[in-house]
């Protein structure tokens, strides 16, 4: 099979980007989308042209490094699948495929299809952790966690931080990412002590990074390669309202991050 690619090329963050069209050579339909880009890049390199820059790492759908908005949908046509596990057989022979970087102001394009997702790191630094002493492992079952809660926390923890939720959101909101990162900790006993300060700090950092606002359209969970539910957004909204009230009326100084 062969496809025609309409790819976003941009030299660096400052330069104006634009689309360029490439016709692929004969492809194996069982190639992954990234392998197809590798083939094009080999051709470009042989011709002495600059290869298309794109993010990739594990290529087995777990690291969250690959991105790409393929025909307007982050991570391509399938549900619950990352770009690296999208295969060329999902496209028609001769199809024109539009490939764009994730589009969001807090995710500036570094080059071609690579965006800087450091805004997510800032969010994690603000509240995506628990403060515990390291050392020997605690006794088993010292902190009881029911199976339901453990499963729910695990559902949230499945987030690989790829940023597809931001890319798909009509408003470039980071709510699904932030809600997942918050819930995975808030649900468990280890995360509970810092719940309020975490939630307040996460929202503050998310807002300052310039992400948009959730309008409850759930495009995020529809593109999430880990199918994280918008339920976590509702949970996060609830946690934020509760934290806001408690920080307003509590005399304890523990809740300071949101002030």
């Amino acid at each position, binding site marked *: 099979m062969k496809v025609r690619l*309409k790819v*976003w090329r941009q030299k660096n963050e400052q330069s104006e980007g634009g*689309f360029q069209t490439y016709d692929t050579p004969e492809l194996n339909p069982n190639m992954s989308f990234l392998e197809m880009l590798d083939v094009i890049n080999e051709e470009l390199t042989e011709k002495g042209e600059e290869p298309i820059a794109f993010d990739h790492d594990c290529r087995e759908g777990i690291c969250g490094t690959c991105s790409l*908005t393929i*025909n*307007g*949908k982050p991570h391509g046509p399938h549900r619950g699948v990352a770009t690296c596990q999208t295969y060329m057989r999902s496209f028609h022979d001769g199809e024109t495929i*539009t490939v*764009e970087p994730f*589009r*969001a*102001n*807090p995710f500036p394009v570094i080059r071609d299809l690579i965006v800087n997702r450091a805004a997510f790191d800032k969010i994690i630094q603000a509240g995506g952790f628990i403060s515990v002493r390291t050392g020997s492992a605690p006794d088993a079952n010292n902190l009881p966690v029911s199976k339901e809660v453990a499963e729910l926390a695990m559902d949230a923890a499945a987030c690989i931080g790829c940023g597809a939720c931001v890319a*798909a959101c*009509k*408003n*470039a*909101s980071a709510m699904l990412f932030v809600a997942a990162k918050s819930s995975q900790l808030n649900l468990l006993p280890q995360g509970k002590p810092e719940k309020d300060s975490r939630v307040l700090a996460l*929202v*503050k950092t*998310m*807002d300052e990074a*310039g*992400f*948009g*606002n*959730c*309008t*409850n*359209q*759930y*495009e995020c969970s*529809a*593109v999430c390669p880990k199918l994280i*539910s*918008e*339920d976590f*957004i*509702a*949970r*996060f*909204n*609830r*946690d*934020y*309202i509760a934290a*806001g009230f408690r*920080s*307003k009326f509590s005399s304890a100084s523990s809740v300071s991050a*949101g*002030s």
Partner: protein
Amino acid sequence: MHKATHFFTSSIGKKVIMAVTGLILIGFVIGHLIGNLQIFAAPEVINSYAHFLQSMGPGLWAVRLFLLAALVLHVWAAVQLTIENRKARPRGYDYDHTIQASYASRTMRWSGFIVLAFLLFHLAHFTVRIGPYDKYNEMTATITHQGQQIEVLDVHSMMVIGFQSPLVSLFYIVAIGLLSIHLSHGIASMFQSVGLLTNRWRNGLANAAIAISVLYFIGNALIPLSVLFGWVDIQNPSLIASL
């Protein structure tokens, strides 16, 4: 910055404002519809109801100011959120693609803006009665109030005459249609924004929101349509004589 101020200017805080003010406004429009449906009863019914509301005095103004505050906050939050959302994605996608966002959710700004414009007309038309609608003030009817016959504004005739203009009726029906579309997203969305929604009743609520919106549209559209088709007519003897 004060903590409460920060809360209500944060992204989620503004969404909470949208949800709470939205709930207040939904309560109002549904109450307003129920009041208006009295047009299908005898003229005395809606005329007495209108007189009851207008005789509330300061209470009426308290409700009006409360609703105005809710509306102002709703629009203010919407404008702020929209500006931020536009800034968050200065360059959109070349290949526009929507997976599951409803038509209503994608047109909230437009439906809201047009309904706001309609609201101004509606207030000038039936509430303030200015310009060409000044003549409504001269229409009076007699109702029995606490055993006494009193002269009140003939709201029944005012509505009938108001909707006898096909253009005005069309504007009302279009605006109410847009408001219904607006509500079909808003009713479900507000529960998510305040964190009350879970997957157990997410689909149920979305369907209920559509059902409520459809019923709301039918109820409202029936009023101008009934006038246009002559099902509801002027019953004020002095007005009939002058026609």
